């Protein structure tokens, strides 16, 4: 179950992980994976180019035609990150994410926009049986797969991994679980509580990455399953009681031991095994024990991990990488679009909503009027058009949010009626009204800048993660904007790890970041990110400071973090109750404005056709698939018969 500080256990010191399946259930741990991967991918989109770039490229003239020699045997991924600290334990904060879905496979890849559809990976099939009234059964049947130590993959491996995820709080299917059993070596059966929808927990099962029981079983006491089930029973009633209960403590102790475990070598089960790793490179070679090994024709994978985005761009443009995933400013996107051997593709992580978080526990942002005034000081249209840029390539791109709420415009349109939408506040750009609002609250615009009602100068610190082109530029934009109107602003950009810890720890004034995520079909799931993951995900992490208990008109007095998680998991989509919940939350978000949503964006990656061809066609569902790590889409493409050396 979600516990304070758990984010550390999956926080990666290495790389932005690829988005995990986006679901309401993927909480703390997975959300983080999801978070970094997604966020970085989306940074790619933030500044994707507007107009065509006509400027001569500094690199174009000088590009060497390299890599065309003979038959390419190594496929190179270009990534931003750091491999200074690394662990071969997926539950350690320093887990090398590049090993996810290359060396360590997940059970299945969820098909885009289809909660029940999947590409089989370690699971050959996932079937649903039983009735919702008594509790659904989900049976996972495993492939005949072999670990690199020669042992076969069995249901015991999956079972142990699932226990570990439960202990760490990474897999919230535990909240909805009645039982989990392994009837034989190839099958594992999850029994859900009555009333829980199978399609809403399926993504949590797809994303399980089994670890070898031969390495991890010794960390898991025999009583763990019973303790976990008991712990989550308590948790459903009261999250606070769960962590202080005896079973809760026993479970937490197991998690501690697992997180601290540091295996000397990686025992893996995916199509590639680790060959060598140092502070900037990873080499992987084909593993013949993988159940679908014959599908892979490329003998070696290589990851080049560079310290900053701006080192990745020129390398990408000059053909050093076969696939690159990095946040790209619009200049770079323009260059990439003009480079014949490069192709931008829409990334599986879909769409994120970007905006400003206010720290509601921090004066003066605890005042609704201040938040609303700031909303009116920002020209969203200008920010989205000019700073984020428009995609030249058409599909997707950046779009301003007309009625600020964390739900992306397409989903707003699907779930809200036009009369409901019209009742929302558009917060149009209106500096004069904003000044009036501020003055009405007792703020004064003196010669030295704005002064707050308490007599202190109105100083704000805008925080964004360091090295990400999009938040970097947008926060600079906002800083200039605020300074220009007499609100003294400074911009701080800590490393992502620190940034995330400050965000969840409530240690900030204002943050520019992605406020909700993912092109997913469940709008309530979109709200779990700002309301639960970034807000009171544990008693010690106040995050945005919304609540913890507050009155939502139409819903009542609720613990926002718990309420949204439960509602997203258990209220069936396409019911009246669901639609009403969506409207009530959106209306509250729009008027209380704990988060000011500005626009939404689509993420792009880049592939290079100089050495490898036969990429999936544009718009292929493969590219839209969401996977753990940052390379599952390429692995899936290879497996589906795409990507061959020239």
């Amino acid at each position: 179950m979600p516990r304070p500080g758990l984010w550390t256990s999956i926080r990666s010191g290495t790389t932005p992980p690829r988005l995990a399946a986006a679901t309401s259930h993927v909480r703390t741990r997975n959300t983080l994976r999801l978070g970094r991967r997604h966020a970085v991918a989306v940074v790619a989109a933030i500044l994707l180019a507007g107009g065509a770039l006509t400027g001569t490229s500094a690199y174009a003239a000088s590009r060497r035609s390299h890599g065309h020699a003979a038959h390419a045997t190594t496929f190179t991924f270009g990534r931003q990150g750091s491999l200074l600290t690394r662990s071969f334990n997926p539950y350690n904060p320093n887990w090398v994410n590049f090993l996810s879905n290359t060396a360590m496979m997940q059970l299945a890849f969820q098909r885009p926009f289809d909660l029940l559809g999947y590409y089989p990976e370690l699971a050959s099939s996932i079937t649903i049986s039983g009735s919702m009234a008594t509790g659904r059964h989900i049976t996972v049947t495993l492939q005949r797969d072999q670990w690199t130590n020669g042992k076969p993959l069995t249901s015991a491996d999956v079972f142990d991994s699932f226990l570990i995820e439960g202990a760490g709080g990474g897999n919230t299917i535990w909240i909805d679980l009645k039982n989990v059993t392994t009837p034989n070596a190839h099958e594992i059966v999850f029994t859900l509580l009555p009333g829980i929808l199978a399609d809403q927990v399926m993504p949590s099962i797809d994303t399980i990455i089994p670890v070898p029981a031969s390495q991890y079983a010794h960390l898991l006491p025999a009583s763990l399953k019973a303790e976990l089930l008991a712990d989550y029973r308590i948790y459903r009633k009261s999250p606070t009681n769960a962590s202080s209960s005896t079973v809760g403590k026993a479970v937490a102790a197991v998690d501690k031991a697992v997180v601290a475990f540091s295996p000397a070598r990686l025992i893996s089960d995916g199509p590639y095994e680790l060959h060598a790793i140092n502070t900037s490179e990873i080499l992987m070679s084909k593993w013949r024990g993988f159940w679908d090994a014959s599908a892979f024709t490329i003998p070696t994978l290589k990851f080049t991990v560079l310290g900053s985005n701006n080192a990745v761009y020129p390398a990408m443009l000059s053909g050093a990488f076969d696939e690159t995933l990095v946040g790209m400013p619009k200049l770079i996107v323009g260059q990439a679009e003009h480079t014949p051997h490069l192709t931008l593709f829409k990334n599986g992580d879909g769409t994120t909503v970007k905006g400003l978080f206010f720290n509601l526990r921090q004066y003066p942002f605890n005042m609704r009027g201040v938040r609303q005034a700031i909303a009116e000081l920002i020209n969203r249209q200008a920010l989205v058009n000019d700073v984020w840029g428009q995609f030249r390539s058409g599909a997707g791109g950046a779009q301003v949010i007309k009625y600020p709420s964390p739900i992306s415009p397409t989903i707003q349109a699907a779930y809200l009626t036009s009369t409901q939408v019209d009742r929302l506040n558009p917060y149009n750009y209106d500096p004069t009204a904003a000044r009036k609002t501020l003055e009405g609250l007792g703020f004064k615009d003196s010669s030295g800048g704005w002064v707050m009602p308490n007599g202190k100068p109105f100083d704000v610190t805008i925080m964004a993660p360091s090295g990400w082109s999009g938040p970097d530029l947008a926060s600079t934009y906002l800083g200039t904007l605020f300074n220009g109107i007499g609100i003294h602003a400074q911009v701080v950009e800590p490393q992502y790890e620190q940034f995330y810890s400050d965000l969840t720890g409530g240690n900030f004034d204002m943050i520019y970041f992605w406020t909700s995520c993912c092109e997913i079909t469940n709008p309530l799931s979109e709200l779990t990110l700002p309301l639960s993951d970034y807000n009171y995900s544990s008693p010690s992490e106040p995050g945005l400071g919304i609540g913890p208990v507050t009155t939502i008109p139409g819903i009542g007095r609720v613990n926002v973090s718990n309420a949204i998680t439960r509602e997203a998991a258990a209220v069936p989509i396409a019911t009246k109750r669901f639609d009403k919940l969506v409207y009530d939350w959106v209306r509250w978000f729009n008027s209380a404005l704990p988060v000011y949503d500005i626009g939404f964006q689509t993420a792009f990656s880049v592939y290079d056709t100089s050495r490898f061809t036969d990429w999936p066609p544009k718009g292929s569902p493969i590219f839209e698939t969401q996977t753990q790590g940052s390379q599952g889409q390429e692995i899936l493409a290879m497996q589906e018969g795409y990507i061959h050396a020239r």
Partner: protein
Amino acid sequence: MTRYIIRRLASALAVVYVVISISFFMIRLMPGNPMVALEEQLQLEGGLTMQEIQAKVSAIYALQPHAPLWQQYFTYVAHAFQGNLGQSVSDPGTSVVHIIAGALPWTIFAVSLSLLLSFALGVGIGSFMAAFQEHRSAKIVTLIVSFLGAVPNYLVAILLLYFLADLHHVFPLGGAYSASTTPGLNLPFLSSACVHAALPVAAYVITSFGGWALTMKGSATSVLGAEYVRAAQAWGLGRRRVTQSYVGRNAMLPMVTSLALSLGFMFGGSVFIETYFTYPGIGYYLIQSVTNRDYSLMMGCFLLITVAVVVSNMLVDLLYPLIDPRIQGPGKVQRVKVQSAAKDSGTLPQSGGLS
């Protein structure tokens, strides 16, 4: 002599002691004491007894969080002198000393290579400038050299990285060696290490040889004007003999001292360059720990960099009498004089004492 050595050792230890104290108080007096914060976090996470939590915190910070301040202080100092600098916060379970031990060889490799190349180049060009002072070419060289010496090394690093690694893949994009080689005494690994160090070394050399050249010029010029050289010339000794035996040797003495003294300081000066080239040396780890607020690793790196300076200073003081026969008794070298000599001739590298 023995007494001098003991005194010198004692003063070196005293400096190390002071720096350990500084790092203790920096951690301890931080706003929002990181130890207490960690402890609270562990408490909330549950699953650990108070004793276990304290054991964990004290392992990470190498001191007892709840002991009286003086006791914490002594524990920390005692641990530090035993080489226990605690554990990394961002890399749980790994000791700071272990991380530093992994980073150190790369810094030593790159730093000593940079320093020697920069020194050799500087001495060569400096001698040229001194020998042909009135010549037009020497004046142009002097201008170029002082220009390069004033350029911040990270700007050169940015440009080198962009043109020679990112754009034209002449040199690798980052790191210390290729993962396809096996670390050890084998040719592919060694050549890979050299190729990877080439750009960081170049960035340093380009911006620092100018300082050496100007110092050498100053040193050689003053020797040229010295009476014994004039006397030698008056005696009719050959030009070559005079330059080599009289000028060269005497001009080189202060240079060698500065070289040894710079060695330690370069550990600190490599911070920006290592970070830009993602070169996994001590400077890169320092920046990483700073941005991750990994206090124990941060202080470990800082401590090690300081110890490097202390040790090389001490070695210079102890060895100098062996190099310079003019110094009869030991301990007559005044470090400051060497440094201020460099400053006098306007040749202190751009960092103005910050390197």
